[in-house]
């Protein structure tokens, strides 16, 4: 099986693109060598051979490996390859049509000089399936979706269409299975951590804030007590102004209407003036 240097690019299941480097095979009968280069190997086959022989060169086979079926494309081809008119044994339209079809086909039969080897950005490639859905026996048609394919080159004698030389099989290439877009699960993936942090912290803050606001309003409206003015009996009646040079007693006018000093029998009646305004009537405490 060819292993080294295979590069496979999958773009579209309809068009499988493969770069194959078949290993060098020398055919003793016809003295032809396939070089170890890419798919366009057939273009670089020795020119001497080309002049001597005009062989048809068939390109890739598609052989489908279906593990569930007993006969696969590879085994079918290997069984058929010694027969004549190999190119008609399994034409493309019937190659994959039913469970009993041979599951291989030959494509791009032609002379080496007519072989297409486009060079794209420095890479030579052969694009399998580029003919799309076609119906001629050896067209380069699309492969079944999701299948696994292998391919190889063969050299065919144009007279009786027998296989004279062939490259090794490539590796398995599995095509993409198609998915229905409706089956994509676009559902909710769960709450992220940031969302949980933000929501929980902010909700608790808001709840606390409202609670404290409520408590504040209740406290202010109902539960607040009147503040007492501090009164020290006697100390405001007459006190020193603490002037060191000229200490003089200061008589508090608030107590002017009480001429006598307080005694035990006539204690001081403390009064409260609203807004410290001596002109307004005082209330006795």
């Amino acid at each position: 099986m060819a292993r080294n240097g295979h590069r496979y690019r999958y773009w579209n299941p309809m068009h499988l693109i493969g770069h194959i480097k078949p290993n060098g095979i020398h055919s003793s009968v016809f003295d032809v060598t396939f070089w170890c280069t890419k798919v366009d190997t057939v273009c670089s086959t020795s020119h001497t051979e080309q002049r001597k022989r005009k062989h048809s060169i068939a390109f890739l086979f598609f052989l489908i490996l279906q593990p569930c079926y007993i006969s696969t494309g590879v085994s079918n081809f290997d069984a058929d390859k010694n027969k004549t008119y190999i190119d008609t044994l399994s034409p493309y339209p019937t190659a994959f049509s039913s469970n009993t079809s041979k599951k291989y086909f030959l494509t791009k039969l032609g002379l080496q000089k007519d072989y297409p080897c486009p060079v794209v950005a420095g890479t030579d490639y052969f694009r399998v399936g580029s003919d799309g859905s076609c119906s001629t026996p050896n067209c380069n048609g699309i492969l079944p979706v999701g299948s696994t394919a292998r391919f190889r080159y063969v050299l065919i004698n144009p007279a009786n269409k027998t296989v004279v030389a062939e490259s090794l099989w490539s590796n398995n290439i599995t095509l993409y299975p198609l998915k229905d877009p409706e089956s994509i699960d676009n559902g909710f993936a769960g709450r992220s951590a940031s969302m949980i942090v933000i929501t929980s912290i902010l909700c608790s803050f808001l709840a606390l804030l409202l609670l404290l606001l409520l408590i504040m309003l209740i406290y202010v409206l109902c539960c607040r007590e009147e503040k007492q003015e501090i009164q020290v009996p006697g100390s405001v009646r007459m006190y020193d102004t603490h002037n060191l040079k000229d200490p003089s007693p200061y008589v508090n006018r608030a107590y002017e209407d009480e001429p006598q000093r307080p005694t035990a029998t006539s204690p001081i009646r403390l009064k409260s003036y609203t807004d410290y305004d001596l002109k307004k009537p005082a209330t006795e405490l």
Partner: protein
Amino acid sequence: MTPDLDTKDRCFRALLIWSNLVIACCGIALMPMCIFFISDRGRLYVLVYATGNDSIWRGAWKGLFTRFSLFCTSIFGMHAIAVSKINILLAYILLMAIIYAFEVASAITAATHKDWFVPDLFLKQMLQKYNKPLPDNLPSTQDQIYVINGITETWNRFMTESKCCGVYGPEDWVKNESHFRQQCCQQDAMGAISHLEACKIGVSPFLHAQVTLKADFIRHSFGVSWFGFAILCWTFFVILGVIFHYTQLDF
């Protein structure tokens, strides 16, 4: 009339005034972030609208107005604390509580609705609606027409400008029963495709194989939710301080 303020009270008031200044600065600085989000420079609104979960824009609108109100109210608050009259301070506290509640709503809305945006949501939407045939132009189908046109134009713009292809890569189109997209191919300065064959077989510079970057609005929506969260944490303590100050006032 009022007794002289002692030092502690004066310090506390100064602290509250400074805190309100911080809220004012934060409010006016974060309001443009909401404006930027709402203005939707990347023109991604139609993608979100098509999912039916465009509440993130509502969160941003709320955030816009609450942050501006925070700015105005905190300036008023600086005056209210300096004057320290009962009614004015009470008005300030109630106003701040209302704005606080709305900002909480904005931050939570933005944070919650961002969770809906998983890549598969946009993938499915893209596969179902990109370049699909439009229905007949009736009044009842205007919304569908808007959505299909919007999604097609938005994705075309993404794929050519950001040099990407699909949500996860070119495989999106391949694996899901869809068609090859020429917008995924590299284009030259005149808008023509550089090399179509190379693009079709997937040669690297000719096919954009990058993943579409997560739409920027998901990152900007962080600003709506997380900065709102930050400003609210600060404002919470400031309001507590003002409430305490209010209870200590002499009536």
